């Protein structure tokens, strides 16, 4: 069996004159957890829709298990479990009724369906509420049930489209625990979000999308290593005299920029060891006393900002 579970090549999707997805390519290996990161409107949901067979691409191809998905009833769809961004649940029905309905769509029936439903309810911690109508659930519980529905038929690949939108911190943590457990069970996960911390916690690899294109596809450490963004070093000064010495800092090799705000000096350092030593020596020479030094590596947010020129929350 090939290690490659999903392979998307040069996906293009247009809605009228607007190109929502423009030549997106990436692949998922079995057991991998990948974050699909991008601001609203980046094309994440459209990409997910094409991967799960909801939308036909205008260009390119999706292969699942080595074969393209052909038609609505392609049995390869059973490999997929989609957790849509919307709460796709029937509020007037009980949690168990919802699971039984969606399970039947995957040809589950009888004892197998009952077992799968019970197992999914237990997995998301809703077994005690199985007989309650969904409309009585909190937002977080609905999100967890939304996840449970996708697990019913035990899919190999889970496509989670912003699964924590609008949930309380407790439910959010519960969903994180669920996803981590699914990773441990060897499921392949594509996790779409615009929350950086979710990707950092749950995924080994990150695909960053913007304006319908993939702007980066790498492991977290790989992304951080290939950064052009500088480390930042924050120096708390004891006393600040005239700022003539500040310009001298920017001429030092390994220091790209220096900013002073009150007694807080921020150095943008491209060579942490050599640059920082030279900068501290310069400060000593001009009689600027440093009380403390703190360094900060660039975050995923910084990398995203660097790659796209805008913040994730800009939308």
């Amino acid at each position, binding site marked *: 069996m090939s290690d490659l579970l999903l392979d998307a090549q040069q996906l293009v999707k247009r809605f009228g004159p607007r190109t929502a997805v423009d030549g997106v390519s990436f692949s998922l290996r079995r057991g991998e957890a990948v974050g699909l990161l991008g601001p609203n409107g980046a094309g994440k949901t459209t990409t997910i829709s094409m991967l799960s067979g909801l939308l036909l691409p205008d260009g390119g191809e999706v292969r699942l298990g080595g074969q393209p998905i052909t038609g609505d009833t392609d049995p390869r769809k059973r490999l997929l479990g989609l957790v849509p961004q*919307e709460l796709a649940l029937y509020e007037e029905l009980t949690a168990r009724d919802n699971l039984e309905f969606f399970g039947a769509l*995957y040809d589950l029936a009888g004892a197998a369906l009952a077992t799968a439903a019970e197992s999914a309810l237990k997995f998301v911690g809703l077994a005690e509420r199985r007989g309650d109508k969904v409309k009585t659930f909190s937002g977080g519980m609905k999100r967890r049930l939304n996840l449970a529905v996708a697990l019913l038929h035990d899919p190999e690949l889970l496509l989670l489209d912003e699964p924590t939108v609008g949930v309380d911190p407790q439910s959010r943590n519960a969903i994180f625990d669920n996803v981590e457990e699914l990773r441990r069970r060897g499921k392949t996960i594509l996790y779409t979000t615009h929350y950086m911390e979710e990707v950092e916690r749950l995924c080994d690899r990150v695909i960053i999308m913007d304006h319908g294109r993939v702007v980066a596809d790498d492991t977290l450490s790989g992304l951080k290593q290939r950064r052009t963004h500088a480390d930042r070093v924050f120096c708390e000064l004891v006393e600040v005299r005239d700022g003539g010495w500040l310009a001298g800092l920017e001429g030092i090799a390994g220091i790209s920029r220096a900013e002073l705000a009150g007694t807080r000096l921020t150095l943008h350092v491209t060579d942490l060891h050599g640059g920082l030593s030279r900068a501290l020596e310069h400060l000593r020479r001009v009689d600027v006393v440093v009380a403390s030094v703190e360094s900060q590596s660039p975050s995923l947010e910084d990398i995203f900002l660097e790659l796209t020129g805008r913040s994730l929350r800009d939308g």
Partner: protein
Amino acid sequence: MRQLLALIRLDLKLFLCDRRALIMLFIVPIGLASFMGSVFSNSGGKSSVGGGMGILLVDQDESAVSRGVVDAFASDPTFRVTVTNEAAARDMVLNGKRPLALVLPAGFGADALPGLFDTNRKPVITLLHDPSRNMERSMVEGMLVPKVIQAVAQNGLSADLGRDFIRRGLTNLDRATQVGAHEQQLYRSMMERADEFLATRTNRSLFGSAKGSTNGAPAKEFNLPLPFVTKAEALVKNTKGEYNGYAHAFAGMSLQFVLMSLLEMSVGLLRERESGMFRRLRAAPLSRGTLLLGKGLSYAIIGLLSLGGCFAFSMVVFGVRINGSWPGFLLCLVLTSLMSAALGLALAALGRTPAGTRGIGIAVVLLLLMVGGAWVPTFILPRWLQSAALVTPTRWALDSLDAMTWRGLGFEAALGPVGVMLGFIALFATITWLRFRWTAE
């Protein structure tokens, strides 16, 4: 098949959870059909209109003949008569409190009989009517003729009136210079003999015993004969049961609410699509055809439950009977339900959005119900509209149910409407197939 059954089961569960939908499909049509049936039907052969059509009579003559006319209307169960004066009658008709008033003028009794022979001496009965109530006006005008003739015959043809008529005739004969002497003599002789006969009948009805019997009731020995008699025969094929007008009322009202409810469910289908539910449905190995078939069948089952429930109620409470073929009736119910479901889906396909579908759907459904005869009998519609009704599925559905219930026709009579309804189902299914979008974006 498992997916199809799951889709059907889902909609039935959702329907049973929705108290508003249950009320709309069972309680409201039963209530309205009961009301409509009681107003318009002729249940058990007893006229329900008789308790209802209130008319006004103004008797300015107060003669035996005019009282006879008033009595004739009052004793007819079709009318509820109020005797009043002309000013009050005009006021009540003007304000819509009564559809019409008949004013019998002073001298009506004296002039009514001569009016039969003398074109210059006819009393004028004024009919004051509400211009929006022409049906009632036509009905009263039609009933007026026999009632007046009956009153004149009973109260006007007395010996005294006859002798007075002869006296006036002889006086006129004396002035008739154009008539020859011989003819005058013959005529005078004939009239004098008639007067002799009438003299023997003074204070008595013309051809009967003494006017006023021993118990004081007016004598009824003589009626001026009409040139015809009517014999009413209600035509139903199967005479096991009587005509029951509730049958049509229940067919019309239950079909109306089935169509309205299925329209609402189709709007709900589009809401599902907009809410993202379709993304989850489509992620499963489910075809568009299975989804639409599942929806169509579940809607049809719900429609069938509603139609069946309403008819069962009408049978238990109002004595509606399937005087025709039971298999035919069941087949018509099934086809009516399928046709309604297919129409709902076609409207969803054409409307595209929930708001668009509701707008188009309400207009189409109301038009089909009105033209198809669900509210009023089609015979009162203009001729062109009656022709147009033939291309409405509702007309065929209602006709088929009427045929199997009160008309008492056999199974073969159901086949025509069933064939037409199958055609409509095919048409609506094609529209749905071609126009229904299930793409998520």
